[in-house]
């Protein structure tokens, strides 16, 4: 089956005006999303995951500014292909055509992302009434069926409930129902399970996956939970200091990581069978108030070579789908391998899963 591109982000640069000065949060992000697939964007807090997605939805905070780049959204309106260049659209146009209608978002904290003074029904129906111009009766009917779809018991009764009457897991289900209310083509999930406890997490992830299959939805996950990534993603983009430093299929990232930062992330996953101290990446991300020279990760990178401090590495191609931005992949660079403990861990995972993974 031919893959169909739905979202294309090229050379995105975003900065924020703050009291301390201009922060260059996004420094040249490239991203492709194909219809029906799931990509995960992983990285530390502040690496620019959410900002990239907010720019896509046109909901950057007012001190944020897109300085350069292209975000193209290849929508299909009843089989008519329409291309939206989101960065060239006005806020009003984005509101009318994109946000909530064709691209919808689920946020991190279900406890705070519903309006406490409005009933579930009102919050669920307002998108449909606004975008699809449904009558109250039609919207009510659709809202009830959406609540059924996200497996909320007694949907009719819940329509009249207020957010404080529902549990966290229930609220996140409601949020998902709201996001899906106008049948979007892309669903952005900004750490949708971080605030929930583990058993609920699994259920919510499963729910999103089922809905995705049913509706051929394209999903972008923003997360720093690599456990979640391995379960749900087709492709993974690893972000660091406003750039994507490695991207590939989920297998490529988990079993054949090439960027030292990805090595660090994978090594930091807690392992119950190991009695070693949990690995942490030393240092903290750079302050993007100041210009970054060379590779932003170099100061925290024990494998850094001289070149890393001088010039920013380009994306080196490893396979057709796997790219990484580190000078270690340059043919002139010394041969460096991933830490032995990580190697051992990956080998163990491969053995356990019995997945034959060949390069």
């Amino acid at each position, binding site marked *: 089956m031919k893959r169909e591109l739905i979202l294309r982000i090229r050379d995105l640069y975003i900065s924020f005006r703050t009291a301390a000065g201009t922060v260059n949060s996004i420094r040249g992000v490239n991203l492709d999303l194909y219809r029906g697939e799931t990509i995960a964007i992983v990285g530390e807090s502040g690496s620019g995951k959410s900002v990239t997605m907010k720019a896509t939805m046109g909901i950057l905070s007012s001190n944020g500014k897109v300085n350069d780049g292209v975000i193209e959204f290849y929508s299909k309106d009843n089989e008519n292909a329409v291309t939206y260049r989101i960065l060239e659209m006005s806020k009003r146009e984005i*509101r009318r055509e994109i946000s909530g209608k064709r691209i919808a978002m689920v946020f991190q904290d279900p406890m705070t992302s519903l*309006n*406490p003074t409005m009933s579930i029904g009102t919050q669920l129906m307002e998108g449909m009434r606004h975008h699809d111009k449904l009558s109250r009766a039609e919207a009510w009917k659709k809202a009830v069926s959406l609540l059924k779809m996200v497996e909320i018991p007694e949907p009719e009764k819940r329509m009249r409930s207020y957010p404080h009457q529902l549990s966290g897991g229930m609220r996140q289900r409601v949020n998902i129902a709201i996001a899906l209310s106008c049948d979007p083509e892309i669903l952005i999930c900004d750490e949708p399970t971080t605030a929930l406890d583990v058993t609920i997490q699994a259920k919510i992830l499963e729910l999103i996956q089922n809905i995705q299959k049913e509706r051929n939805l394209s999903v972008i996950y923003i997360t720093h939970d690599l456990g979640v990534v391995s379960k749900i993603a087709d492709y993974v983009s690893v972000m660091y200091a406003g750039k994507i430093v490695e991207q590939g299929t989920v297998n490529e990232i988990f079993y054949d990581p090439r960027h030292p930062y990805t090595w660090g992330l994978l090594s930091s996953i807690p392992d119950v069978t190991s009695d070693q101290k949990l690995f942490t990446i030393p240092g903290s991300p750079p302050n993007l108030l100041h210009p970054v020279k060379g590779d932003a990760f170099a100061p925290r990178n024990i494998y850094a070579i001289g070149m890393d401090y001088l010039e920013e590495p380009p994306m080196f191609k490893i396979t057709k789908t796997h790219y990484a931005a580190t000078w270690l992949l340059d043919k002139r660079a010394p041969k460096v391998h991933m830490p032995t403990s990580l190697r051992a861990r990956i080998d163990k995972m491969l053995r356990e899963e019995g997945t034959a993974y060949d390069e």
Partner: protein
Amino acid sequence: MSRYILKRLILAVLTLLVIVFVLFLMLQYMPGSPFNDEKLNAEQVAALKSKYGLDQPVYIRFFKYVSHMVRGDFGLSYNIQKNVPISSMIRGRLPVSIRLGAQAVLLGTLLGLVLGVMAALWHNTFVDTLCTIVSVVGVSVPSFVFAFFLLYNLGFKAGLFPILYKVTLPVSSTVLPTLALSMFPLAQIARFSRTEMLEVLGSDYMLFAESKGLTSFRLHAVHALRNVLIPIITVLAPLIVSLMTGSMVIEKIFSVPGVGSLLVTAIQSNDYNVVVSLTFIYCVMYIGIMLVVDMLYGVIDPRIRLTKENSHEG
């Protein structure tokens, strides 16, 4: 809900009884007596006291007064308008005071809300600075200063409104006192609504609502405003009360024939029954406003709505 209101009403009656009793005690120990005329000798004063029942112990007077009050009889005035029933003294004055207070609260709250919300929407701009200046000035400058300022500029120099209250011009006469009174609530509400709106605008649910692609109007008027109103109501009740006391001074300045100026005179001349009945009326208004405000909470904030369904689900 009705059970809750009933409970509140019973509590209110008890509160009022306690207040009236404390008033009786305080008046008992206040220096001076209602009969201060130097021409009166001791015998005459004693005769007057026994005529009005003032020679009896305080608790008996209290019970007598309350039993009369229940029948709508607030007693007679001793010296302001000798032997005139207080109910007829108040009848003409109370509507004037209530009208003045209500106008000031309404004007101040509405303007304050608009100013505060605008300041938050245009955060760190000229509007925001203006809001801050207005609220600082409004809170820190006493209302009688505004009263004199308005009186001089709009009343005396421009001649737009009467300087003193004219019974023949009941509408335009209240303009200046209303403006002077509304400055304080305006400033308070502006400050609160600005802070609150900023917090609401930065909340997760506003971001989520924005991501739904709603119109800017719906986003602010429906999603934000309701959440802003909740804490505003909290400050509204004490504001209204402070307006009632503040209006005494303003009523004096503009010689408004209201109950505020009457109370001041009554205290100065030891006219016990006038003091007790006016204080009683203020308390009734205060308790009534508190009850209304508490019920308003429920209307606006579903989290504290007092319905059967909610109390079961916790």
